[in-house]
């Protein structure tokens, strides 16, 4: 598997770790302009650590769903092209705005990822990748509804959180249900459990059907 251009393994305290170049935002270690991208704090970084083939190559147009305060988005915007960052909760968006201030191609949108019609007049069609990390119920539904933004050869890169769907159910059963629903709009290419970096999370790469 190849890392996208702009994502490299750099040495931090004698250890090879993922890093991107850009304005530091949350107190992360920086060596020679490269910001440490901690796989324990980011599900996308964890997928790179697990050598998942994401299809991201650098300079991609990205729709990021569930941007939260922008920890992962800041790294995505470092290596990707135009990046649309959707987040529903106002308070994390306050931090996301600081991240976007120093990144000219990062576009913050305070919107509900379950309602793409509220941002379809802003987010362009034919994006190269949807990165999804939403912690609400109905994560597969979100991915299906946002399929319309994706180019035919684009990729959905999603982290499915079992506990967001049902805290009591067996994660494997939750993941199966989510994958079944995803298959209505996507062909699933790869799945990887992200434990122990992210407990009860499943990394999924898929392309539109």
């Amino acid at each position, binding site marked *: 598997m190849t890392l996208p251009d702009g994502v490299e393994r750099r040495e931090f305290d004698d250890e090879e770790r993922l890093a991107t170049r850009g304005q530091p935002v949350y107190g992360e270690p920086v060596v020679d302009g490269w910001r440490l991208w901690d796989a324990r704090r980011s599900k996308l970084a964890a997928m790179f650590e697990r050598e998942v083939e994401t299809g991201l190559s650098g300079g991609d147009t990205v729709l990021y769903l569930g941007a*939260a*305060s922008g920890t992962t988005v800041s790294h995505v915007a470092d290596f990707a092209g*135009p990046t649309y960052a959707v987040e529903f*909760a*106002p*308070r*994390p*968006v*306050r*931090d*996301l*705005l600081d991240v*976007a*201030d120093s990144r*000219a*191609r*990062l*576009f*913050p*949108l*305070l919107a509900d990822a379950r309602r*793409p*019609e*509220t941002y*379809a*007049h*802003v*987010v*362009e*069609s*034919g994006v190269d990748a949807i990165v999804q990390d939403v*912690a609400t119920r109905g994560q597969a539904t979100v991915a299906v509804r946002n399929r*319309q*933004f994706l180019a035919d050869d684009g990729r959905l890169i999603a982290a499915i959180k079992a506990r967001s769907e049902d805290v009591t159910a067996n994660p494997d059963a939750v993941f199966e249900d989510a994958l079944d629903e995803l298959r209505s709009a996507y062909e699933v290419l790869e799945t990887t459990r992200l434990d122990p970096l992210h407990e009860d999370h499943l990394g999924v790469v898929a392309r539109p059907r």
Partner: protein
Amino acid sequence: MTENSGRRDAGWFVDVDSGDVDAASDSIVDGSADAPQDWPQLAVDAGFAQSPDEYYDRLHEATIHAARRQVQERERADDQQLKHAIQAMDDCEARANELAERVVEWAGTLFEDVETGIEGARAVADREPSSPPEERVVALAERVVDLDDEATNLRAFVEQSAPAVAPNLSALAGPVLAARLISLAGGLEDLAKLPSGTVQLLGAEDALFAHLRGQAPSPKHGVIYTHEYVHGTDREHRGSAARALAGKLTIAARIDHYSGERRPELDAELEDRIARIRSRGDQ
């Protein structure tokens, strides 16, 4: 709303002057479309921007402006709405109880077997009046039912909106107590800035001032007494439980105000702490 809100196929930049950031931000917030299109190219074709690069510069400026404005509006509004809702809920409950007493007392002179409280008033409201005074007391009982129903609706609203305003505080305190603390402090920001000792005594101001005048022992808890971790802990350890709970609630309120992200580990930490305090007596 913008004039083009009826059109569901237009990009955010349509009918927006390239230099007008406020109009651009309005269009981003209020607009919608049934499906995305190649907006950068369409914007260049429409003369909104000279190049995709210039389009993205404008989009960056407009989205940041829009998001900043939305965050400010939503944050300012939500905790104040919660504050009004919890106060209105208390008002409705208090008035409903007060009027229920009046209804029951009055109805007792007209009907047999009138039960006390809100339930008694509800039973009176269901009666068929057969004289002018009965008409009045049944109508008054109906007002009690309305007030009590509204209190229930307000409680449902508080339970639904508190987790959005303060996710961690609501998880630890329960939505109603979370709303009460926010209301007593004056808002979420005010609560986040209070020291934990003050949070512990919010709602116990009368007792605190009596204590300061030298007329009473120091209060150990205010409104947080309603939390099971305080009233469910035996008297000997209740002060410690109240202090521990207030400490965690203070941290939760600060996370809610300054970050807004949910931290489930707080729940477990509090649970451990209370379990340890309660087990001290067993050793």
